[in-house]
C-alpha cells in the first residue's frame, strides 16, 4: 500500500515537471495574473514548441550549403571553397570568418526564435558568430544549405543534436554516420532513436569515443530549473511541508509560510499526488491532492526584491495560521 502511494506521488510529480519544462515560455507570455492561484489542470502536453508558421517559413528557405569537410585530409586553403565548412574553419584557424550573407541572415532569425526555448530571457550569453563554441557552430550549420528544411518541426531538437555532436567532439567519433548531414533527419543519425512524433527517445553511444562533459549542456536549461529541481527533491525526500520551509530558509529574505491547521497534518505527510499547476514568470504554484481530503494548494511567490512567499492557495476559504520567519 505504501508503495502504491509512493508511486502515485512520483507519477504525479513527473508529469508536472515535464509540463513545467516545456510550457514555461507560454505561461510567461499569457498569464501575468499572479494572484490566480486556482490551478488549471491539463493533461495535454505541448504539441509544438515553436510557432508552426514560423517553422514552415523557415523550412521553405535554403541557404548556401557548406562544402564537405574532409576530416582525414583537411585542405586549409580556405580560398578554394565557396563556403568552407564550420568544422574546417575551426580546425584550420580556430575561428569562423567566412559566412555567406544568406546563412548569416537565417542564423540571426534562428537564434532569436530558438534561444528562448533554452531559457534565455535577457541579453543572450551567446557566443559571437565567429566562435567555434558548439552553440555557435551548430546554429551556423542549421542556417546553412537545407539543414533546417529537412528537419522535423522540432528545430530546437535538431539544434541540440548538432550541438551534442560538437560538444562531444563528433568529428573524432569512431562512427558518426549521418550526424551533421543536412539531408537526413536527426532521427536517421547513427545511435539516435525517435518515436513516431520524431522526438528523440534514445541515444545509444556506448564506446563511441565521446569526449567532453555534460556540464556544458547546462546552459540549455531554463532559468530556475535547477532550483525547482532541488525543491522537488526536497519534497520527495522529506514531504511537502518541510520542503516548503526548507525552500524558505534557503533564501535570506523574509519568508512567510501559511499553513491551514486543518490541513497541516495532510501536508506533513506525503501527499498522494502532487500537481504542478502553473508558473507565471517567477511565481511557482504547487498543489497537493491528499488521499481522502479536499485539495490543498501551496503557492510559492517570488516578488521583485527576491522575496519568496509560500502560501496555501486552496481554492476555498482558508482559516489558516501564519508562521513567519524573519
Amino acid at each position: 500500500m505504501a508503495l502504491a502511494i509512493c508511486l502515485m506521488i512520483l507519477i504525479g510529480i513527473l508529469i508536472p515537471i515535464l509540463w513545467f519544462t516545456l510550457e514555461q515560455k507560454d505561461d510567461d507570455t499569457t498569464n501575468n495574473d499572479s494572484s490566480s492561484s486556482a490551478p488549471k489542470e491539463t493533461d495535454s502536453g505541448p504539441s509544438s514548441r515553436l510557432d508552426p508558421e514560423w517553422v514552415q517559413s523557415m523550412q521553405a528557405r535554403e541557404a548556401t550549403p557548406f562544402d564537405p569537410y574532409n576530416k582525414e585530409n583537411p585542405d586549409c586553403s580556405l580560398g578554394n571553397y565557396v563556403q568552407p565548412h564550420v568544422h574546417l574553419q575551426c580546425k584550420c584557424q580556430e575561428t569562423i570568418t567566412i559566412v555567406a550573407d544568406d546563412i548569416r541572415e537565417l542564423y540571426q532569425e534562428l537564434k532569436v526564435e530558438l534561444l528562448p526555448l533554452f531559457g534565455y530571457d535577457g541579453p543572450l550569453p551567446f557566443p559571437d558568430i565567429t566562435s567555434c563554441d558548439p552553440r555557435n557552430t551548430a546554429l551556423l550549420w542549421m542556417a546553412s544549405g537545407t539543414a533546417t528544411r529537412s528537419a522535423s518541426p522540432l528545430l530546437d531538437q535538431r539544434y541540440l543534436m548538432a550541438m551534442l555532436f560538437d560538444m562531444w567532439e563528433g568529428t573524432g567519433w569512431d562512427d558518426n554516420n549521418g550526424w551533421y548531414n543536412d539531408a537526413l533527419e536527426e532521427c536517421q543519425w547513427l545511435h539516435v532513436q525517435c518515436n513516431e512524433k520524431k522526438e528523440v527517445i534514445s541515444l545509444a553511444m556506448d564506446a563511441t569515443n565521446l569526449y567532453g562533459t555534460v556540464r556544458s549542456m547546462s546552459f540549455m536549461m531554463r532559468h530556475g530549473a535547477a532550483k525547482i529541481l532541488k525543491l522537488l527533491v526536497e519534497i520527495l525526500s522529506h514531504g511537502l511541508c518541510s520542503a516548503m520551509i526548507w525552500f524558505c530558509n534557503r533564501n535570506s529574505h523574509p519568508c512567510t509560510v501559511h499553513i491551514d491547521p486543518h490541513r497541516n497534518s495532510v501536508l506533513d505527510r506525503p501527499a498522494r499526488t502532487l500537481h504542478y499547476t502553473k508558473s507565471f514568470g517567477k511565481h511557482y504554484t504547487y498543489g497537493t491532492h491528499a488521499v481522502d481530503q479536499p485539495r490543498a494548494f501551496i503557492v510559492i511567490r517570488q516578488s521583485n526584491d527576491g522575496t519568496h512567499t509560500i502560501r496555501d492557495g486552496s481554492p476555498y476559504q482558508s482559516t489558516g495560521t501564519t508562521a513567519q520567519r524573519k
Partner: protein
Amino acid sequence: MAVLTNLRGLRLKENKLTGELISELGLLTNLEELTLGFNEFIKPIPSEIGLLTELVTLNLEQNRFSGNIPTQMGLLSNLENLYLSKLLTRGSIPTQFGGLMALQTLQLFESGLDGKIPTELGNAMDLNRLDLKGNKLSGPLPSELGLATDLCK
C-alpha cells in the same frame, strides 16, 4: 537538455566524458535507462537522480564520483539494476535503499563504502545479484535478505 525530455534511454558507457553530472539531468524524467559507466565523471552524484523515477537501469560504475551515495536514490522504486561499483564514494549504503523495491541486481563492489548493510535491502524481494565485495562493510548480513529467496550469495 530541456528539449530531450522524451528521452527514455541515454547510453554513454565507455567514453571519455568528464566533469560533474549536472543536476538538470533530473529533468529527463522519462529515462528508463541511464548508462554512464566507464567514464571519468567526478564530484558527488547529484541528488536529483532521485527524480528519475522511471529508471529501470542505472549504471554509474567505474567513474570518479566522490562523496556519499545520495539517499534520494532510494526513491527509484522501479529500478531493477543498479551498478555503482568502483567509485570513489564513501559513507554507508543509504537505508533509503529500502525503497528500491524492484531491485534485482545491486553491484556496489570496491566503492569505498563502510558501515552496516542496511536491513531494508530485504525489501527487494526479487534481488538476485548482490555484490558488495571490496568495501569496509561491517556487521552481519541482515537476515532480512533471506526474504529475497532468489539471492545467490
